[in-house]
């Protein structure tokens, strides 16, 4: 969708000025060359609050071109306010094509999820990161966490995970579960559920992380080892769901709980709405899916 030509002149292409893009692009290249290391950058004010993922938006703005096809998700869904606003922003300032189909996107910007469908060679997954420093809750001082990364001093992180085991009998951390990248840097996958951690490992896509408020960019190149921290006697395990998606019958996918009524009725459905729809289009049905498709409260996707 193209904006009227008289409005185009009011914006730099993709909003950021060229000098800012160059600075962010240089940071991205360093991030790729040092997988998992957090590169400082001079984050800019964006026309949206920090909570909306300005770091991811700045990364996307610096890489996107007129030939790209952009998908934006929030909690796995393309139709939440945050995802809709960011998608509309890039349609307006970069005139790019957008899609909800993972397979059709060249750039996927996300806040919480990695799409269920495996990403392909050449695709770029951009994460909006609130807190990039995995050691921050152990050590509030930036000078100290930087030193810990420099010296590969990750013992405290293991102690913290082990405290989980002592307290709960298993590692209770389920979101922002720390990973080690290519055997070197401990990295925060951000607010993604640990369910998605295995998808980062040896992904075919390039993964870029932008933290606006904290002014950090980091990256995982394709075909790169991403290992969730664990212990020999307590190996890393992803969450398991007891039932399949109520709409598409999908197993081994991340499910969200949806409240159906005030009598306590509820169902579990795919968090990845595009994945769920594609499965239903292919004829898969869950136990609550009527012949006419899903209840109207569940989103509809499709290329716009």
């Amino acid at each position: 969708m193209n904006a009227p030509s008289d409005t185009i002149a009011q914006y730099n292409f993709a909003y950021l000025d060229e000098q800012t893009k160059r600075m962010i692009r240089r940071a991205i290249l360093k991030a790729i060359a040092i997988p998992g290391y957090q590169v400082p950058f001079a984050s800019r004010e964006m026309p949206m609050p920090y909570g909306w993922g300005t770091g991811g938006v700045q990364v996307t703005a610096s890489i996107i071109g007129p030939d790209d096809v952009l998908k934006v998700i929030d909690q796995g869904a393309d139709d939440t306010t945050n995802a809709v606003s960011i998608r509309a922003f890039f349609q307006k300032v970069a005139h790019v094509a957008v899609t909800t189909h993972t397979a059709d996107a060249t750039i996927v910007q996300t806040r919480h999820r990695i799409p269920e469908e495996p990403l392909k060679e050449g695709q770029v997954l951009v994460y909006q990161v609130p807190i990039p420093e995995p050691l921050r809750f152990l050590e509030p001082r930036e000078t100290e966490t930087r030193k810990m990364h420099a010296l590969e001093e990750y013992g405290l992180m293991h102690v913290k995970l082990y405290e989980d085991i002592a307290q709960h009998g298993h590692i209770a951390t389920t979101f922002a579960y720390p990973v080690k990248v290519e055997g070197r840097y401990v990295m925060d996958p951000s607010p993604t559920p640990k369910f998605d951690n295995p998808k980062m490992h040896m992904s075919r896509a390039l993964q870029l992380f932008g933290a606006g408020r904290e002014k950090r960019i980091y990256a995982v190149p394709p075909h790169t080892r991403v290992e969730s921290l664990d212990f020999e006697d307590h190996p890393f395990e992803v969450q398991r769901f007891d039932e399949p998606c109520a709409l598409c019958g999908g197993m081994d996918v991340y499910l969200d709980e949806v409240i159906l009524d005030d009598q306590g009725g509820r169902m579990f459905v795919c968090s990845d709405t595009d994945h769920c729809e594609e499965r239903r289009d292919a004829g898969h049905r869950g136990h609550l899916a009527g012949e006419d498709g899903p209840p109207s409260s569940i989103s509809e996707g499709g290329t716009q």
Partner: protein
Amino acid sequence: MAFDSIAIEGGFKNPVFDAQSMFRAVMQALAEPGTVHRGIALTRPPAPLTPEAAGVALTLCDQDTPVWLDPALRAEEAVGTWLAFHTGAPLANTPADAHFIFVADAENLIGLENFAQGTQEYPDRSATLVLQVKSLTGGAELVLEGPGIESRARLSPHPMPRHFARQWAQNRARFPRGIDIVLVSREGLAALPRTTRIVNQEGEPCM
């Protein structure tokens, strides 16, 4: 005056879009070491700076990034003038001060350890080498492993700096410090980030 017109001509035709597509080529090249990226936006710089190397300069360099030119590029005053006009990048006093290194005579390049390696705490404060080569094929084969490479990649650029495999192993050993290389030729561009290992056919590191 002819000198001035040489300096102000020859930049990108569409600066915003050309820089964006050039950046994506460099980004993908670094993300997938050994792959060759063609169809990059061209410039018309004064020789011996090549259009491809100049394209990288226009995409990534500005007043915040001191550049160092090797003696072959420095010998042509027009090269420095052109780069200064189109990028605003200052010339670095010493190789170690430069963020970007442009090299026209790879064979006679000074040792890689002379360039900024970054620090253990800030390994990103390191230099990127833009190496002009005659070709990305036909030279001694480099078998590559590391992040961004599914199993192995192969690249045969020439000419390359002397004792390159040994120098690169030393660069790799400094990780996370170290330099990154962008190779440019008429065939396109490829890159060697500091994570890439050069191995022999048995998969052992080359020294």
